[in-house]
């Protein structure tokens, strides 16, 4: 298994290099002059002198590959350049924004786990009941409704009408609840279905019949069915963590949550390339590493996978 792990880690390197190259190339394929963009972003009217000065400041007068290698080598050391808008280090912006997103994602993850486990197990145990049918309808609706709409509805109901929460912002501890619920809804529906369907499949397996025949307690049997049903959900959950972090864009904008999603959206609207490039690279690396970690955990949990390897 150690050798396998080393092989997987080494395989990440070319993936990340490709990703970094794509992140750099795609953005630099634009025909517009980045120096002029960097000026216009602050509502300055660029004159030729200003554009030339900015081009030199940003190192845009260097050849393409020189710029790429300079960028990638600095990125490895955590220096992603400076924002076109604020002229402050991109790393500083990301370091400021990332904790907010991690906080939001963590609360959302907790909601996802608690809701989907409780509801998924209950739906599997009471398969076909009125409750099960209602939950499936809810799952269908919440998967179909776009998160920006759900977010606005939740603000209207829980903040404006009931007055329980602030409409937006991060000023109170309770401010995280509405955005976390909005963020989690899209995932909760997926996991309820996954857990429910896997448990229903597993509860008809021979080992369940055998356990009952042996006289084991029903609660213990349910627990075992649940654990055996978790493999796919765990894999999906592992990949959902980076998705949660990268997917906060809409929610952070609606709820004025000062996280990395909002940073990315502002960077896109402002054509703030250094931030966009850094965002793509960091998110890509996060996905790749999470994928590896999830695979490793699955292997540790499921002996069948270790045998296959």
């Amino acid at each position: 298994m150690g050798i396998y792990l080393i092989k997987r880690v080494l395989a990440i390197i070319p993936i990340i290099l490709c990703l970094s190259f794509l992140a750099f190339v795609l953005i630099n394929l634009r025909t517009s002059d980045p120096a002029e963009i960097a000026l216009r972003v602050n509502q300055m009217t660029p004159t030729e002198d200003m554009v030339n000065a900015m081009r030199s400041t940003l190192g845009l007068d260097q050849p393409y590959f020189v710029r790429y290698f300079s960028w990638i080598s600095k990125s490895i050391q955590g220096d992603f350049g400076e924002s076109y808008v604020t002229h402050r280090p991109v790393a500083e912006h990301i370091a400021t924004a990332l904790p907010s997103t991690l906080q939001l994602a963590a609360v959302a993850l907790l909601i996802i786990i608690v809701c989907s486990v409780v509801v998924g197990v209950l739906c599997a145990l009471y398969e076909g009941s009125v409750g099960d049918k209602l939950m499936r309808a809810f799952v269908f609706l919440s998967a179909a409704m776009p998160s920006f709409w759900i977010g606005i509805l939740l603000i209207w109901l829980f903040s404006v009408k009931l007055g329980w929460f602030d409409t937006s912002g991060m000023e109170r501890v309770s401010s995280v609840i509405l955005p976390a619920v909005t963020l989690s809804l899209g995932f909760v529906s997926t996991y309820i279905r996954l857990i429910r369907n896997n448990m229903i499949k597993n509860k008809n397996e021979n080992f369940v019949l055998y356990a009952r025949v042996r006289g084991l307690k029903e609660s213990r049997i349910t627990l075992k069915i649940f654990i055996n049903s978790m493999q796919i959900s765990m894999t999906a959950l592992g990949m959902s963590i980076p998705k949660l972090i990268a997917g906060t864009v809409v929610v952070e904008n609606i709820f004025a949550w000062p996280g990395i999603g909002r940073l990315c959206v502002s960077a896109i609207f402002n054509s703030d390339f250094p931030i966009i490039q850094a965002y793509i690279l960091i998110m890509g690396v996060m996905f790749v590493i999470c994928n590896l970690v999830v695979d490793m955990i699955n292997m540790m949990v499921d002996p069948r996978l270790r045998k296959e390897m």
Partner: protein
Amino acid sequence: MTIGKRYGIIIMTFLIMLLTACTSPNNETNNASISKTTNELVFASTKDIRDINPHLYAGEMAAQNIVFESLVVNTADGVKAALAESWDISEDGKTYTFYLRHGVTFTDGEPFNSDAVKMNIDSVVGNIEKNSWLNLVAEIDETIALDEYTFQLTLKNAYYPTLQELGLTRPFRFISPKSFINGTTANGVNGYAGTGPYMLSEHVENQYAIFTENKGYWGDNPKIKSVKWKVMPDHQTILLALEKGEIDLLFGSDGDMIDSDAFKVLSNQGKYSTIISHPVGSRAIVMNSKQPITQDAKVREAFQYAINKEIIADGILNGTEQQADTLLAESVPYANLGLNGYQHDQQKSNDLLAEAGWELNKDGYRYKDNQKLDVTIYYNSDNAQERTISESMQNDLKQVGANLNIVGEEKQAYFDRQKTGEFDLMYSLSWGLPYDPQTYVSSWRVPSHADYQAQLGLDRKEWLDQTITNLMNEQSENERIQMYKDILTYIHEEDIYLPLTFSVTKAVHIQALKGVGFNISQYEIPFEKMYFEQ
């Protein structure tokens, strides 16, 4: 009853309770009529204030405006005194002597005097790379602190808009010398000590900023002691926050304002006060005199008659902007010329196109030498309103046999197109007062601007540019009036611009907030004049 059924009933009950909460009538949690218990104004903006260094462009102008001041201020009645109590201008118009206000200090305790003025202006002029968009920066020759409260500015030429440009929101505003880094502000500042009615006391990036009253302010202290600038990127959230009573004021044009339909709904509701400013700038279409079809002056004139501006002003802009007959509103200095506009007249438009040789074909479009009367308008795809206006124009032009293609482009691509001149029609928005008319007209000489490119096909373009250059340094007011009359009349008669409306700034606020008005510049928000009803 089975557990499943019980479970289902519990869920149904919860849903019914939720729906009941949704439909409860007239609950008092919306606070339009509530009186404020705190003397803090909460203002919502889609953008953070960022870096409000007054000499650079990395921050929100409305925030810079309440913290930093200049020697003079632009008002509806012209240039007025601010940190300079009075001034003299030499006969040749090249030397300005300012007599500074005594007893003013920056919020860090540093005294405001002519040394501070010199240091600030030198820093701006020294950073010509960032500031070359403003003609005054290149015109400044020398700055001298004659004595503690007398400051002299000498120019290379007698640049007439000197005072107006000194009074702009940026860059000629004053920050405390202690806030400079290594003798300059070009690389940032280490504080934001100004002389204005407010000071920045707290800033949580991308969340909010709090401005509190400058207790040592030399002028009238603001009645509202604290302004909280809350960042809310989404307009729907802003509306919900307004309804909840979390925010008191929305202010601005375009990006920072809710769309005109939402504005109309709020106006009709009557729960909030909605106000619209005087015309601040010009919203016009510029037609390219170098392109094959629009180079024909008769075609341009025909388009003037073809466009129904009433639909645009009333239907699309919901009556918030008045129709424009001329490029610049008559309230703009030097633009009160009594020029006649064009009334919507399809028949006249048809006649002119026929005279120009464009014959109507069976397909409903006009052709000349086998070429279809096909023109393209480009707009910035960030601006959904411009798309709607273009569609209205497309319909109008179709009625007279012209086909208008509409192309929305990403912002920078749109600006690139302005530089190349590869367009038939484009939007031209002036910056509004106090930049109009001099900054707008001055930019017509800059090749990277759509205005320059569109005017390039005119017979007298060279004369036009030279006259603009001359009038910037013209000392005699009468001569200047004549020169503006000449160039604006020429542009009007050549039909290069199709004026649509005059843009406005809008504000929405709770009824308890009073004194909400507009400065001459659309980029400033006069928080210092507002107050809460007791």
